[in-house]
């Protein structure tokens, strides 16, 4: 889809959406948001970008293969659960602590995993469809 308006608008919009998606991901524990929604927002932003500039551009910017991103997400989610096992708790029990004075917990890692899975899976399908030759 070759449209100057779309391309120019996308440059700002996609960047904003990606930033917003991280914001949504991080605030999710106390306010509306979370990994799933954040992932969807990011995926929508990237989808917009791929419609405007084409899938090659997205691949260049993304750097990482979407399928791999999805798998890293699954590993992160499982890893967050295993943290509890190493800590002597039942699998997936939340582990909390302070890093540089900020309270963080294993659910955050879990949520990041969810985020990566959503972005990776959607992008894998979308880019494959866009790159398909007629």
């Amino acid at each position: 889809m070759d449209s100057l308006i779309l391309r120019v608008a996308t440059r700002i919009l996609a960047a904003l959406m990606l930033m917003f998606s991280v914001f949504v991901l991080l605030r999710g524990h106390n306010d509306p948001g979370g990994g799933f929604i954040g992932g969807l927002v990011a995926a929508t932003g990237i989808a917009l970008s791929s419609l405007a500039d084409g899938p090659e551009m997205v691949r260049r910017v993304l750097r990482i293969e979407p399928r791999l991103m999805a798998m890293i997400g699954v590993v992160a989610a499982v890893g967050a659960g295993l943290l509890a096992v190493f800590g002597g708790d039942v699998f997936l029990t939340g582990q909390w602590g302070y890093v540089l004075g900020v309270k963080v917990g294993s659910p955050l890692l879990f949520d990041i995993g969810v985020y990566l899975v959503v972005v990776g899976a959607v992008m894998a399908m979308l880019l494959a469809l866009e790159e398909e030759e007629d």
Partner: protein
Amino acid sequence: MAGEQIAETGAVKAVRWAAVAVPAALAVWFLSMIPAVESAPIRAAWEWVPTMGVDLAFRVDGLGLLFALLITVIGTFIFLFSASYMKGYPASGRFTFILLAFMLSMLGVVTADNLILIFIFWELTSITSFLLIGTDFKNPEGRRAATQALVVTGGGGLALLAGMILLGEAAGTYSLTEILEAGSIADHGLYGGILVLILIGAFTKSAQFPFHFWLPQAMAAPTPVSAYLHSATMVKAGVFLLARLHPVLSGTPEWEVTLTLFGGITAVMASVLALRQTDLKKMLAYTTVMGLGTITLFLAGSGEAAVMAAVTFILVHALYKSALFMVAGTVDHEAHARDINRLGGLARAMPFTAAAAALAALSMGGLPPFIGFIGKELIYEGALEATFAAPFVIVMALAANAMMLGVGLILALDPFWLNRTRRPHLGHHGHVHEAPPSMWAGPVLLSLVGLGLGLFPAAASKWLIGPVTSAVYGAPVPVSLYLWHGINAPLMLSLLTFALGAVIFWMRNPIRRGVAGMLWAMPASADDVYDAFLRGIHAMGRGFMHAFQHGSLVGYMWTLLAFIAAGLWATLIGTGALANVPMPSELPDLFLYEWAVVALIGAGAIVAVLTESRLLAIVALSGVGSGIALLYVFFGAPDVATTQLMVETLLVVLLALILLRLPGFRVTEKGWRRSEMLDGALSVSLGVAITVILMGVTAGTLDMVIPDFYGERSVIDAHGRNIVNVILVDFRALDTMGEVTVVALAGLAAYALIKLRSDGDHDRVAPAPTVKAPEKNRETV
């Protein structure tokens, strides 16, 4: 010899030879247990799945020990034999590893003290046997034999599992020791079912009629496998189980009649078929079936003599049969032939092999002073004391033993001492050499053990036969074996056997022709029945595939939605819930902007149904979704609303990409066609059902227990105020993990489907279903 010869590395060779140490060490270990087991079983247990009564419990009693010794001692010689025999086979390292895995599984079967554990090891022996028969997997015959063995023994294994579970429930415990202590369960209501299921398991494994056919086919395996699994050990698992559960299941007419009939028929039929064979290995395979039939026949009885006969014969048979198999393998290896009509005069070139063959065959024929003679005497003693159909048992035993002697004479004499003129045509231009010592050591030593136990029967009875008989009988049995019993009925029967055996050997060629003619006249063999059974399974599979995997997306959607609609309506009407749903009498009191959203949703749905453009249909549908997202916003669910909105957006993008590649809706004529009316009816039906349910749900008061719980515990337990997200990542994180995995896999699967299509690599694409999708003039997405 099957399989191609390849150059091999030193490592593979080292693996083959080093593997001999494993059974040898285990054999020493089990031998050291003999004195302790004579007084009481050795037991050891670890917890595994305590809630289901499954423990890693082991028990070595007389019976288990006899089998463990057979497995490890014969195993030592087999691995020794295999180290030379398998030289040059492709992947002989893997072969050795699977053979070891089999040995450990088999040891598990005979020492497990838990019904479920027995089953697990039992299945492991089936699987390793499958892999070993299929060693030469490039050969279609080998593949078929491997599959057949797995289908038959695996199918029997399923019956066994059911039988074991029933037995465990009937006895109230899965511990074998406790079940054996509790004794017979013949009075329990489940006895009949338990008996049938366990017998199916045992009969398939031990190749009893009518499941006998897989065993001769399994001779496609390399000879070490035939000698080890399919004569000495794995096929004995079935009779082992019968012996193991003898105190629990035997003593009833059902047990006695079934085992007598099937064992007797199997024994005689197999010995007749053995006489017909000219392939050394096939001949031995049928005599193995005959031996297993004989053991079954005598496990039928509950008298001491019958049990003793069965137990002794297990030992006798394992010794001579593994030796003979290795002899057959050696002959095949050195002379490059194993057809009895091509072999002859090998005694001078292969003296040790010939000697081993003679010793083993004499034990097999039941001649004194071999242990085989004692075994045969015990068989006649047991037959004379049989409580059910004694004449039948005597005739069966006599016929089987006589034919066994005939086959034994054929095996010992024909290839080695007779037909000397054939020798120049064997091997490499008539040069046949004796095999390396590693190959003849096993047969010679095993046959000598058979001779030694015959000469010193007191040792055999005190250390082996006595404890085993007691274990099978369920109570201490005084056992003393003798070569000379005086002039009595068993001795007379033995003399008759010798005479008949000699006649059979003399008449072997006419008999072979006669049996072949008889078989030719038979309408179908068991093997044919197996083929027909497989064809039936395949036809059924194809039928199901055509009915459910037809390739029409519309058809799939129809099946799913119609099923849901039918289920909902059946519940609504069946439970009478429909009558309790309150019908609204007036329009709800909504704000104007809420009405606007309702109008947007309705308009979207109508446009989606009526439009002739795919793109418009998709956009209209996403309008419906966005409207619903707005409703979520109105009712205070921002998380759900955002999700819904994002999903709708992405769906439009994805579907638009797909739709651009599809042809437009085909509209061939005006008016609504039948298929559209049906689609419409289904949609309305499903929609109304959901609406009614929602109205019913919202009319009642909502149970707030769960929301209140999350509201209270969210901050305390999970340090978060957003209940929705806390549920997702903490309270129910396991669910989310499953969902995330599904999303990732769905992404991968979709990627694979798209890529396979666009690569244009048709070899990698699964063939399209052959069934045409039902004609639709207007496809919906």
